[in-house]
């Protein structure tokens, strides 16, 4: 068995065990309704986590995504309120803005040789600030298109609802999996995460790949903002504070190495679902307080990081002995 796959298997096993525990306590948990809600409630987090997976696989980090989601919501709400544009061209405009924003951050990181941490931190301030400039109040979105999207769903067997935004998340994950594991760009991302110098020597276009990675993260943060606006029917500049942390946590729980170079987009989906499951469990239980979510996620993070550390140590040691022979 490939040791690289272990964190991914561990994530899947933990998810199944957690779901089994939930099912034993609350048999109603195993219904398509709960699964449908799990997908809908975590759609925006899942989409942004796909972008974060690529960034982390390349050895970087993107702290700006939470602010970009908030900016997207406010931008859509203000555009729909103040102009008579249809939501679809507004979406296209928004996605090009956030993609360019991400690309600009990637360019800054590469051209100035600055740590991604600091550059995306500035991006985080900038995006949140632009959201404030557009509107400090919560702006409601009222549009027939929004009502249509929100009321459209596919009735799964067992009366569970797979909403458009839940389905959108699954599509983004599918595209992300193909992009990461089946294309040249994906290979370049992995190579970059293994070591910039090595990647450059192997002929990976470092500049182009870095810009594209952050552009992709910006694009998906914008898409996540659109999904979040469908979810809440409003744009609010103080929304989604700290979502970047949730996304990073989902990626790590999903078995991706925070140092980059190793991981799976599919694992991130399980990571997001585990985090959603904890919240669902707390809702079902009713007596537990919401702060247990953070503590459990922290404990899971610790478990996965220590597991990965152990695996890296093991594979490193075996590689060392192999080299010795």
């Amino acid at each position, binding site marked *: 068995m490939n040791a690289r796959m272990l964190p991914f298997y561990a994530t899947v096993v933990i998810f199944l065990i957690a779901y089994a525990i939930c099912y034993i306590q609350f048999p109603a948990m195993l219904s398509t309704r709960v699964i449908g809600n799990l997908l809908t409630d975590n759609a925006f987090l899942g989409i942004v986590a796909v972008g974060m997976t690529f960034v982390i696989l390349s050895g970087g980090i993107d702290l700006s995504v939470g602010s970009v989601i908030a900016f997207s919501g406010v931008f859509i709400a203000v555009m729909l309120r103040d102009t008579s544009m249809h939501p679809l061209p507004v979406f296209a405009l928004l996605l090009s803005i956030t993609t360019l924003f991400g690309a600009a951050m990637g360019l800054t990181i590469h051209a100035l040789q600055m*740590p991604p941490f600091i550059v995306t931190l500035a991006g985080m301030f900038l995006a949140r600030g632009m959201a*404030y*400039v557009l509107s400090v109040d919560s702006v409601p979105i009222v549009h027939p298109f929004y009502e249509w999207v929100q009321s459209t769903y596919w009735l799964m067997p067992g009366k569970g609802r797979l909403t458009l935004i839940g389905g959108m998340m699954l599509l983004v994950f599918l595209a992300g999996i193909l992009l990461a594991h089946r294309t040249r760009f994906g290979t370049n991302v992995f190579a970059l995460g293994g070591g910039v110098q090595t990647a450059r020597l192997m002929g990976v276009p470092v500049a182009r790949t870095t810009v594209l990675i952050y552009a992709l993260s910006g694009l998906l943060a914008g898409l996540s903002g659109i999904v979040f606006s469908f979810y809440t029917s409003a744009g609010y500049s103080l929304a989604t*504070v700290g979502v970047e942390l949730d996304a990073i946590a989902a990626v790590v729980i999903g078995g991706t190495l925070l140092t980059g170079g190793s991981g799976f987009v599919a694992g991130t989906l399980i990571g997001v679902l585990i985090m959603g499951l904890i919240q669902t469990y707390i809702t079902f239980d009713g007596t537990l307080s919401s702060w*247990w979510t953070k503590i459990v996620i*922290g404990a899971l993070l610790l478990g996965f990081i220590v597991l990965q*550390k152990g695996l890296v140590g093991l594979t490193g040691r075996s590689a060392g002995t192999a080299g010795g022979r």
Partner: protein
Amino acid sequence: MNGTMRFLRRVAPQIATLAVVLLLIGFVFPGFFDLSFANGRLYGSPIDILNRGAPVALLAIGMTLVIATGGIDLSVGAVMAICGAIAASAITAGYGLPATLLMALGAGLACGLWNGVLVAVVGIQPIVATLILMVAGRGIAQLVTEGTILTFTNDGLAFLGSGNLLGLPTPVVIWLSMGALVTLLVRRTALGMLIEAVGVNRRASMLAGVNARLLLVTVYMVSGLCAAMAGIIVAADIRGADANNAGLFLELDAILAVVIGGNSLLGGGFSLVASLIGAIIIQSVNTGILVAGFPPEFNLVIKAVIVLVILVVQSPAIHGAGVLFSFARRSP
């Protein structure tokens, strides 16, 4: 004499940046530098900057040392929330002020110990190791306050946030003395050099006989202690502990202060004074935007632009280009 010159050259860019920021504010708002003495303390916008900058300045002290070892401490904001919550709940539970302070500071040290052990003993990357406490810490703080904003009326504790000492607000005295104490500790002993050695090359420093493991744990504990002090000050200032918002994003401001202070995120040489000036620059920008009468909505945008300008000026790539340029000029 030589040492003084070197020190001045090291902090010159930070002092120049601070001077430019302050002059700009003074230009927009002429009464900015007015100081008055009333009720046993100084009043005025500059004092206000020193006072409001206290939490970030305290965090920057610990963060500078952590970054000098090549690490980073993302958990300080959450540790602030934990320690503020513990201070507030201990004082409302009827413990005396000394016991309360000991418990809160002890919690900060314990958080630092946890981070330090994960980094130095288990060997996890600092950014990942401290991320755990950053995520879980706010949950723990909410566990302590049971989800409410815990208020208290103890004047002794409130004094730490809003009292006066030696004609200055207490938080200013606290961060100035903490800064002086840590500076003396690392610069009048070999400690500072050892920290830099670990930051430059941990393996080499260990081979040279530095107890890197102990040193790393200690540095993270100092960071936890500084965060605890900042948390107590913030809780004392509003006479209550807000587990959700206390210290929110202050870890980012603290890291920014260290970076503006010209310290490399890769570790190695560091200057505490420059970091502290960096913290005051950040607070001056915040206060300046307010007194200059910009709409508060623009606060973050202006801050982002200033950060970008400072980063571009300090960027290694630009410096590299500068070196090339001067080299090219010299070669013919």
